[in-house]
């Protein structure tokens, strides 16, 4: 059976589309940070945690883990997942958060995204903590995803801060990625 050139081209196109579709749902690379101490100075901050990072062709997923080991969070505390470098207002508009998955129960009250710098795209995903539903010694985790809007240049960073309405941030840690949005290192 002879396949015409047109049929071959069509078949190749279909194969290409299928591959693109499949690879879009398979992460191109992942990064796992070590479990360790979050930075920060607030007495009611989560003391321990970790990062995981999944890089796809059009989006990234960022897992962050939190354990309060000393005391419960005070009421009105928020956590900000900053998909940019807030200290230098850098890496704006690259990664736009769109999605937050909360696991384990009712420990988050509300969520939001916010435009912090650059153009009209948001870079920050925040969520409020339901302090009465957080227990000392238990581990809590979320998965936040962001769309990749632009290339990563020479790489960049994302940051985690502990905060509250009208408070300055208590910086907890960060994750670095390379020019291909692959996670490379983190604190913790």
């Amino acid at each position, binding site marked *: 059976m002879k396949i015409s050139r047109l049929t071959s081209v069509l078949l190749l196109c279909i194969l290409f589309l299928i591959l693109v579709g499949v690879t879009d*749902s398979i*992460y191109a690379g*992942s990064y*796992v940070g070590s479990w360790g101490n979050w930075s920060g100075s607030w007495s009611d901050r989560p003391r321990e945690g*970790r990062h*995981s990072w*999944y890089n796809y062709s059009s989006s990234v*997923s960022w*897992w962050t*883990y939190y354990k309060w080991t000393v005391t419960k969070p005070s009421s009105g505390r928020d956590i900000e997942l900053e998909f940019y470098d807030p200290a230098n207002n850098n890496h704006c508009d690259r990664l736009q958060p*769109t*999605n*937050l*998955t*909360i*696991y*384990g*129960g*009712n420990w988050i*009250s*509300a*969520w*939001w*995204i*916010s*435009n*912090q*710098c*650059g*153009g*009209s795209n948001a870079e920050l995903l925040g969520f*409020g903590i*339901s302090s*009465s*539903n957080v227990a000392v010694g238990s*581990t809590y*985790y979320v*998965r936040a*995803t962001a769309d990749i809007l632009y290339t990563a240049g020479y790489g960049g960073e994302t940051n985690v801060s502990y905060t509250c*309405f*009208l408070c300055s941030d208590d910086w907890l840690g960060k994750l670095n990625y390379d020019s291909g949005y692959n996670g490379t290192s983190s604190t913790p």
Partner: protein
Amino acid sequence: MKSKAKIILALMGIVTFVFTMIWAVFKSGVMASVSHETYQQATYSFDVVLDTYYSETGEEVNGIRAIIQPQLADESTSLPSTAYLNASQQRLQQWVSKRTGDELVDVMLMFARPLTMAEANEILGSTNAEVFESAVVGYVYGVPFVNYAVENGSLLTRSLTEVAESQHEFMIEAEKGHIEEADLTLVGDPVDVRGYLAVRAWIKVNNLNKLAQTPEVRFIDTTPQAVRDQLNTDSNWQNMSVTWLSLPMPVWAYDW
């Protein structure tokens, strides 16, 4: 005469100067006091903060972000109080009789049970809703989860199968030992996505009653639009776009 004119001119100058100073002080005081505000209503409160940023061309863009805290049945639950739900329902009825039918209002629809994308879209499509936020609930290895997402279309676009596929990372995290084994239930389907339990949407006023009478709709929360109405008439925030208006979706308060 000349000296009288001089006195009048001097007085006018002093009055102008004093008024200018008062205006400047008053204006700067207003500017300083409107970067944030907390409002307390009978059944909810909300925080407002300026969400100002600089565009790439250096232009200052003024927006505001607000977070609503509904009065809860008790502190440990996400269930709104009966008073809160009653007030929301009364507001809906007032709007139906007083607002223009074509006016779009920002509301949250809480479904009576988790719905598939097709079921939710049937309800939303029949009222020409414009959905901008959703909450999907489910279990992965027995761990309950809620997935909040920004929606950009008139209807929902992610099937429950797609939501389930996005949970493959959980399995990797579990395999790596990041999730405590004691929390995992390793029997049955690893991922059990129950469905859409809540959405935020722009709805035309003349469709509110129809939605409220739909059996799959548990209740319609009108508080987001009530907050927008208040912000629109508050001199501190007039003419500023609301970049995000956050309202907790009480997904943990019901069985699913």
